[in-house]
């Protein structure tokens, strides 16, 4: 089997697995189904590991259906990727495997006559995300974007007994579908102009046109879908509403990799399709999306700090981190891209682990409310340790992968605009601090018992139904073992030098439009030098600074005298914007699109 064939197999394996699981799930005992699905997910991981190894520091190209280029033109679809996209697909497959293992004892009450439905949906989600990460075709990317959307809406609303998940799923579905229409309109504009759908082919044809209103509008519209999926402010409103109510294993996938895929898609599409001659100039993308990323990082950090519903807190932390990822990618340098890739990998392990422990809390106590869980987590010491470690990883404690990625991205940002450093440090410290504060309250009963006062209407996270019901009151082993393994994975990203050097090589390819186009057209192209992506004393110091700040914030929240005042007046209106009203969110969606249109036009 050639390397190229492994690309479509990464998508076909989970698709076939999903059909198989739906077919036999209701006919086999639960254990057999779980085992089968685990083997299937592992096969997906194995395929991508081999693909990662064989691709090396180059690109894998696969023309589906054998419709190769003839005279420089093809009617088919090409899958093409470097280790950034393959790495994201691998991350997806590993998280899916983790989620399936985590769910072995989860959902004792799936739809009785359709027992295989949940694993089938998870595998379809896997296929959608891998397809989106690996494709080199704009319309194909849209199809897989929709596949992961359709699955994610259903998985979000999985617990139908409670109206909240349905509300969250509906908001998620409507906002993401509207954004997808935007993307489709944009794809239509590009197709009308070029007659092509492949990233590289569109890019080549666009060089013959000047940058006009069509290009600008298509650029903004095509990017709307990925940016909404990537929860970039002001497109982020759906995310906390969906994450707070989705089943915990699903949150691990949504936060760990799906949201990141949105930002990846935006950067990939810009680099290959729009960054060529007569395209959207680099300074325009850079300025616009560094600003958007900083806004997202700060909004997410502030909102994360103010939450008491643990799942909502983790969701806003994802918003904040995705803001930093966007800043990293929008810097448009190989070094920042390498840092972001490492950051995403490290973050996925830490964030999925935190959601996993939260799921154990929910299972045990039927609540994810930081206040009402005060001190009750003492009987789950292992969970407490994992939660604290997760918080420290989020804040950027060396040698976690998050710290390495953040340090490399910070180094790249610093040489560009030093103030970005403050954004990175503050946002990671605030999100880490919120998690540490919650961990100390819940698992150690630290600080005063929180008062139950409501300054603004807020989501408490109490009165949730446990997602599992079983006769045993013990937390099932996988629900703590899987988070521990995920944290170990985050640690490995930081500790294994091979990972960082290989991602640095891949980042060089990711930022090389000419090389990508040459790979598709079968030309040879010499690549430049990879950036450095190693631990530095400066990076370690910055990581430790974030962690020290996070610990200080958390301690201040627990033990310092409460103060009202200025901060509250700033934060309360921001919290009120997150109203849960779908009309508001649709309004923000179109406002965001309009602002992008105006901002990009003004800079051209």
């Amino acid at each position: 089997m050639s390397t190229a064939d492994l690309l479509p197999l990464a998508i076909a394996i989970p698709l076939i697995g999903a059909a198989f699981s739906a077919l036999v799930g209701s006919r086999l005992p639960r254990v057999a189904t779980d085992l089968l699905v685990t083997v299937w997910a592992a096969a997906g991981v194995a395929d991508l590991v081999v693909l990662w190894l064989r691709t090396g520091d180059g690109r894998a190209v696969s023309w589906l259906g054998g419709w190769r280029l003839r005279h420089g033109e093809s009617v088919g679809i090409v899958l093409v990727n470097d280790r950034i996209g393959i790495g994201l697909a691998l991350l997806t497959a590993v998280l899916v495997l983790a989620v399936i293992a985590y769910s072995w004892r989860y959902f004792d009450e799936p739809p009785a006559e359709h027992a295989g439905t949940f694993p089938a949906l998870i595998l379809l989600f896997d296929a959608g995300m891998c397809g989106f990460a690996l494709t080199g075709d704009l319309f194909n990317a849209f199809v897989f974007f929709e596949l992961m959307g359709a699955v994610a809406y259903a998985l979000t609303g999985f617990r139908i007994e409670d109206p909240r998940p349905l509300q969250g799923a509906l908001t998620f579905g409507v906002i993401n579908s509207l954004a997808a229409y935007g993307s489709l309109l944009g794809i239509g504009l590009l197709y009308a102009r070029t007659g092509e759908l492949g990233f590289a082919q569109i890019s080549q044809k666009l060089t013959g046109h000047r940058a006009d209103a069509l290009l600008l509008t298509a650029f903004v519209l095509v990017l709307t879908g990925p940016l909404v999926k990537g929860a970039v402010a002001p497109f982020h409103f759906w995310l906390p509403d969906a994450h707070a109510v989705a089943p915990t294993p699903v949150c691990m996938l949504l936060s760990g990799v799906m949201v990141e895929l949105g930002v990846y898609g935006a950067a990939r599409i810009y680099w290959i399709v729009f960054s060529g001659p007569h395209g959207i100039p680099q300074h325009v993308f850079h300025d616009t999306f560094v600003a958007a990323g900083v806004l997202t990082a700060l909004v997410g950090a502030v909102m994360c700090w103010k939450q008491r519903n643990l799942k909502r807190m983790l969701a806003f932390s994802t918003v904040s981190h995705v803001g930093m990822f966007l800043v990293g990618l929008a810097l448009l340098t190989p070094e920042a891209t390498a840092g972001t890739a490492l950051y995403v990998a490290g973050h996925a392990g830490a964030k999925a682990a935190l959601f996993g422990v939260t799921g154990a809390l929910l299972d045990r106590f039927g609540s994810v409310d930081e206040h009402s869980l005060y001190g009750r987590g003492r009987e789950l010491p292992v969970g407490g340790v994992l939660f604290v470690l997760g918080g420290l990883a989020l804040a950027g404690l060396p040698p976690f992968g998050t710290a390495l990625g953040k340090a490399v991205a910070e180094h790249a940002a610093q040489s560009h605009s030093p103030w970005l450093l403050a954004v990175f440090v503050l946002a990671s410290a605030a999100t880490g601090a919120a998690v540490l504060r919650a961990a100390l309250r819940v698992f150690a009963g630290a600080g005063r018992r929180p008062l139950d006062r409501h300054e603004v209407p807020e989501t408490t996270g109490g009165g949730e139904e446990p997602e599992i019901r079983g006769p045993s009151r013990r937390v099932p082993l996988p629900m703590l073992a899987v988070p521990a393994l995920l944290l170990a994975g985050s640690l490995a990203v930081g500790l294994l030098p091979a990972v960082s050097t290989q991602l640095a090589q891949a980042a060089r390819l990711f930022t090389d439009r000419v090389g990508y186009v040459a790979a598709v057209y079968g030309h040879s192209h010499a690549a430049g030098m990879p950036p450095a992506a190693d631990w530095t004393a400066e990076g370690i110091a910055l990581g430790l600074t974030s962690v020290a700040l996070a610990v200080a914030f958390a301690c201040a929240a627990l033990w310092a005298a409460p103060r009202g005042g200025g901060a509250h007046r700033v934060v309360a209106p921001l919290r009120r914007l997150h109203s849960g009203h779908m009309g508001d969110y649709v309004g923000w969606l179109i406002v965001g699109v309009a602002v992008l249109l105006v901002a990009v036009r003004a800079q051209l």
Partner: protein
Amino acid sequence: MSRRLRLALFWAAAVVFAVAFTAACTGLPDFGTLSHPYGSRAIAAAFHQRTANTISSVNFDQRAFDTLGEESILFAAVLGGLVLLRRARDERLAGVRRGRVLPSTRMFGSLLLPITLVTGVYIVAHGQLSPGGGFQGGVILATGLHLAYIAADYGVLKAIRPLAVLDAADAVGAGAFAVLGLVGLAVGAAYLQNVLPLGTFGQLSSGGLVPVINAAVGVEVGSGVVVLLAGFLDQAVEIVSPTGKDNGAGR
């Protein structure tokens, strides 16, 4: 946000969007020109593959991988529908009331049901030759079955709707598409490559892999849509929420 503020924001942004999109449309190629870069290539490729219906050639051969994704979206929608529409713990089943139908309606229904099903099979089977194919034919098959609901009542529909079989058929159809792609890999060609004998242009057996995938999609769409509609109809007709209100849709 107040309603007024929300609307004001929306309209301000909508105006910007409308202006930008209108300006973008002025950059589109004119109507009625002879230049169709993808169209010309796709028609040539369809001829080469001896597939008379170019649309089917694009859908099931040239860009079959897109269709695999789309068909998986439908499969996911059916599974998701099953999950969301399942009977909750606090809902119970009420009996289905028998409906009263005019004899003429009943007669037309009984007459048209088999005709519609045959039409559906025809549309699926001739996808490589004439407009239609697995998606269109599948929808005709699924809706044809529901003539029983219109011409008789829900009980009759349930009797002629083998849900367990259709459930399985849905999964088999969805999986078959992805498995058919492996045929190419097995003979050393690319994934989803049309490696079957192409037959004679214009014959029912032409097109190689195209009619086979069409059949798989037809099975998946036909059974999937029935299963999905069954979920909705059960909710509307049979399932009673704990407040005890009958939805009043039962006939």
